[in-house]
């Protein structure tokens, strides 16, 4: 029971982290109709910028400034890159963001090198918040939860309760009409892109010390983020939240509990073959849940796409 609680907290941290990325991505998707492949690269940029700033000005300035820089970079990418490619259609846009992801990874290696950065948790937060029957929960995890929940509530408030949010929502669904009403829709799109990438930047800043700041960090998280918003339903903020938490808990629990395939199969009444080492299915029989934890989201996504292509919370796709 105690272990379940610990895993719930761990999964919540992973899920909320995923959500900070997928929230921006899903907003950008409903705006452009295109998945931003480079989204996780902005997350990586956030971590690297924050590391460089924290060397000079400390962690808190990094948390404040790095997302701003990332957001500006994102806005610039939208203004000078995507808007140009937009005229060629969706596939070139998708390819553009894909190329951008490759380029940012190379750029990061170029500037910071290939090694992991010594970006670590600030001393203020480097203590044990509380312990659940011997399993200590670091304060930094609690901090991560608070930051992400705060951002989610702030985002929800801005999008649903403020005038700016209303205009954004309107521009996402009826850009022409909103433009006719005198709003600068390209500017709104640039702003949404900037804010979305800045959110990814925040995620990078707070995830960098825990998950490690290295050139492959975008790749590790990148495809999982797509999986998240596809499962949640493209363009749905609530879907993104649900899917993020689902994936966070699913992978955490699969890693924490060593469930073996042979036990499941035996439980179903299928006997283990006599000479397992010779059998063609030997790898299948020796599967364990930690082994497949990382590919569970992909399996889920493929199943969702087959049986409910619009995603869990998505509207019927056109």
């Amino acid at each position, binding site marked *: 029971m105690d272990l379940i609680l610990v895993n719930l907290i761990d999964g919540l941290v992973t899920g909320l982290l995923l959500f900070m990325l997928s929230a921006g991505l899903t907003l950008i998707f409903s705006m452009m*109709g*295109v*998945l931003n492949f480079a989204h996780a690269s902005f997350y990586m940029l956030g971590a690297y910028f924050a590391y460089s700033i924290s060397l000079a000005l400390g962690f808190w300035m990094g948390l404040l400034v790095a997302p701003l820089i990332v957001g500006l970079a994102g806005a610039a990418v939208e203004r000078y*890159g995507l808007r*140009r*490619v937009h005229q*060629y259609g*969706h*596939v*070139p846009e*998708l*390819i*553009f963001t*894909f*190329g*951008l992801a*490759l*380029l940012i990874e*190379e*750029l990061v*290696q*170029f*500037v910071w*090198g290939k090694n992991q950065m010594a970006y670590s948790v600030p001393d203020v937060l480097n203590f044990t918040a509380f312990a659940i029957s011997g399993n200590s929960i670091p304060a930094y995890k609690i901090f991560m939860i608070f930051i992400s929940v705060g951002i989610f509530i702030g985002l929800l408030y801005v999008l649903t309760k403020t005038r700016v949010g209303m205009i954004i929502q309107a521009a996402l669904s009826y850009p022409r009409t909103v433009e006719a009403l005198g709003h600068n829709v390209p500017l709104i799109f640039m702003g949404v892109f900037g804010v979305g990438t800045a959110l990814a930047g925040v995620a990078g800043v707070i995830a960098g010390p825990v998950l490690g700041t290295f050139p492959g960090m975008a790749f590790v998280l990148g*495809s999982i983020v*797509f*999986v998240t918003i*596809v499962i949640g339903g*493209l363009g749905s903020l609530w879907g993104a939240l649900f899917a993020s938490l689902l994936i966070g808990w699913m992978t955490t629990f699969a890693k924490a509990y060593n469930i073996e395939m042979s036990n499941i199969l035996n439980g179903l009444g299928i006997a283990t073959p006599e000479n397992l080492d010779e059998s*063609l299915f*030997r*790898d*299948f029989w020796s*599967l364990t849940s930690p*082994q*497949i934890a*990382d*590919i569970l989201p*992909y*399996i889920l*996504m*493929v199943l969702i*796409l*087959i049986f409910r*292509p619009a995603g869990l919370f998505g509207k019927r*796709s056109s």
Partner: protein
Amino acid sequence: MSNFDPNTDMPRGARPEEQITTDPSKPSERMQFRLMLFNLAPWIIASLVLLLLPAVFTNNSTITLMNQMMITIVFALAYNMLLGQGGMLSFGHAVYAGVGGFACMHIMNTSDFFSSIPLVILPFFGGLFGMGLAMIVGSFSTRSAGTVFAMISLGVGELIAASSVIIVAFFGGEGGVSGNRTDALPFFGNEFLQQINVYYLIAVWTIISAALMFLWSRTPVGRMANAVRDNPERAEFLGYSARWVRFYSFVASGFFAGVSGGLFAINYEILTEENLNTASSGVILLVTFLGGVGFFFGPIIGAVVFTLVQTVLSLQTELWAFYAGSLFLATVMFFPGGLAGLIMMHVPAFKLGKSKLLIIPYLKTLVPAAIGILAVCALVEMTFHYRHAATGDHEMTLFWTTFDSHTVLPWLVAAAIAAVGLGIARATAPSLKEAWNEANTRGAAS
């Protein structure tokens, strides 16, 4: 102003019945024969070139490079059946090539069966396995094109790449699967011991595959793939199922990807997880797009150029992936037609006999631009050296000059060359544009 309408190539104001330019009373067979010869010419030339290349480049490393090139050509052409002709963007196509290759490796390792077949038909088995996998995946992924298809392809790609470490029996885990191609039944006494023998095997397969893929694009199914790409609703109204058309393209593409995997297995005699991970899928997307998705021969150019760039640049600099990425991004932003598109842009000027007009302006703009870009690259290399070279190692060699990267002079020189080169290119760009418009306008030079 000329007498011809630039849009239709017809005399201005001509009525439709006046637009027939050939005389229908003449026998048309001669014309057809010449047309056929004209269509066949690129194939004959390509075959001759492939046949004669080893006579020119005799050392083994060049032959290995050419083998790599041809394998990439087959794979890129197969990929373009999806991307260019079918409008389906796949982020996991390396899986089909990889699975085809792994299947071939396993066939190589079943000594009884393998010793009873000649090596030359092995890629066919690779194709069959690639096709089989494509049939399974395609049965659900081709339901829609666009983002959903791209996402499924990514998911399936990641899934299979990840299971390659888990399912050791088939994928061989971290070490991969290796075999020995010489165990096959000798083919007219040939055991394919030498690289050059393998070269000819791959060359023949490349020509056959390319020809088949070209012919596929001329079949009704291939034509319908274009229609479905451009407007699925209209294609459905004509009575074609967009989904089945996509499925056929997908399966055919899977077959040829599998063939390329089989060729890879023969050439390298080892396959690892690297052959089917997302990075390989990304590379083939890059190759195809760089070459140009709009034309059949685009991926061929892309494969040749990319393999050359990869091999030559990676020997010269550690930053080759950075340059390749920049080149890719520049292609997407400024030349969405790729290299093939760039070449085909010049066809109208060539047909008008005005391509000569372009040579001087091109030299005036592109040469300074190239020098400027090289200087920018030099700055990038110097920055990299300044930051990442071992401490105390101040000497670097760039463009056959050795200098100290920690002094100011080289930086000034490179920056000056970059500024001057790009400045000249910028200044002469308007006259190039003018010449371009002139060369593409019918009529005498004004």
